[in-house]
């Protein structure tokens, strides 16, 4: 590739070369090195089969779930700068976010709709994986990790639902946690553990908040990483095992 002198000087410099350990990716070697020498790109193999790239095989649903998760983390952190998880302050801070924080309402909208979308997309992804038979060996374990990811996603949505502390959230969580109380033997204990008492209260709010911003997102990051790693270790997408169409 013909490059002008200053650019060449830059890309040959000691600093640049400490960042990027490959040349301009216009040839097979540098394209390979681009993928293998970058921690994020390294999730992918150097080459992938055309079959696994076909859009109507995976519909990109797994990637979309991960993107939505990224949007949720980003907007969620912005909301955390203002939100206070106390029974007295939660609702007023929500109002404040909507009325006086620049782009506050918009950020909250993004967070809310991304959460709904993520639940939907994860369910669709599971259906796609099932109907393409991609849970078959050697991918059984990754399917099981997927089931846990589905439960974590539902848990993250459900715990977030309480945080605005309005009528909608209060009664939805009351109905939801009442169901836990119906479990045989352990029901009442489970419900009390979830609520931190016998009804939705300050204890519940702080428990749901901690689950929502720390425990569940951390578990999701961990398991999504394992999930991606397993996709590679299991030989890429199951589409690779399908007989050639031609």
């Amino acid at each position, binding site marked *: 590739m013909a490059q002008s002198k200053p650019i060449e000087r830059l890309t040959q410099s000691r600093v640049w070369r400490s960042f990027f350990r490959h040349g301009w*990716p216009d040839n097979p*070697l540098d394209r390979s090195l*681009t*993928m293998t020498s970058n921690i994020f*790109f390294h999730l992918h193999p*150097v*080459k*992938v*089969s*055309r079959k696994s*790239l076909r859009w109507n095989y995976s519909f990109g649903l797994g990637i979309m779930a991960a*993107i939505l998760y990224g*949007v949720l983390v980003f907007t969620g952190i912005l909301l955390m700068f203002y939100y206070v998880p106390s029974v007295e302050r939660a*609702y007023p801070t929500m*109002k404040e976010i909507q009325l006086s924080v620049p782009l506050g*309402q*918009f950020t909250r*909208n993004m967070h809310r*709709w991304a959460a*709904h979308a993520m639940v939907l997309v994860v*369910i669709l992804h599971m259906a796609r994986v*099932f109907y*393409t*038979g*991609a*849970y*078959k*060996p050697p*991918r*059984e374990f990754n*399917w*099981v990790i997927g*089931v846990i990811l589905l439960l974590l996603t*539902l848990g993250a949505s*459900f715990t977030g*639902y309480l945080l*605005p*502390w*309005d*009528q*909608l*959230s*209060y*009664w*939805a969580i*009351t109905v*939801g946690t*009442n*169901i*836990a109380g*119906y*479990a*045989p033997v352990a*029901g009442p204990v489970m419900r009390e553990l979830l609520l931190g008492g016998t*009804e*939705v209260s300050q204890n519940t709010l702080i428990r749901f908040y901690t689950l929502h911003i720390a425990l569940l997102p951390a578990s999701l990051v961990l398991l999504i990483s394992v999930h991606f790693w397993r996709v590679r270790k299991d030989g890429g997408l*199951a589409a690779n*095992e*399908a007989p*050639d169409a031609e």
Partner: protein
Amino acid sequence: MTNELSANEEIFPKGTNKSYAIVELVRGDGPMVGKGPEKTVFSFPVVLLWEVLLLLGVTLALFLFSLIKQAPLDAIANPQVTTDPAKAPWYFVGLQELLEHMHPTLAGIIIPGILVLFLVSLPYLDHSRTHAGVWFSTRRGKRITVWTALYTAIAMIAFIALDNAFSMRESLRGVAPPWVAQWLLPALILAVIVLIPVVVLRRKGASTREVMIALFTVMLASAVVLTISGFLFRGPGFEMFPPWNMPDGYNPWNDF
């Protein structure tokens, strides 16, 4: 002497980036013929471009939706005043619909527990490697999916509508002990709905994969029917109303 050196240099050139060489060419029809590198593409930049496109598409869609639809915020929580109806978010409203038809332990704990167990054990029950990576596996698999979905939709709609019209709970009061209406009958009805496709398929000599397709489809289609019923057809008091006849001032879309 000079000749020898240049030949050497040609075979082992110095200062190139080349890390590969042609060793030999073969003609043949071994297992790798036709599956060679020509069926693959470099991840850079193809895969990354796909991902950037998806990223832009998803964010743009969220962006536009967030511009036109505001996240709901109701009045401040008040433990003294119950909302009517107290509805779960859409992904749990199917469960809430199920609760209307049977004992809460059955609908809220046992059935979801069975579903999670089914999902987790699924790849260990169906462990054949054949037909992986193909939508519906075979043509027959596709037909099974479509017919099972249709059958389940009809069966579940009938179950919800009939139980709503002639509530088992009410009509059996005093006739049979409560556990018959709350546990035995609903569990039996659901078991029959689930088992009919399994029995039919087994008789036709279906494979494990095909039975799994039927079971998964029963689960998914039931979830869809229950969710639609709970979301669109339940109004004040979680009573059944057709969406076109919803009481004024109540719109299920308001706060999903």
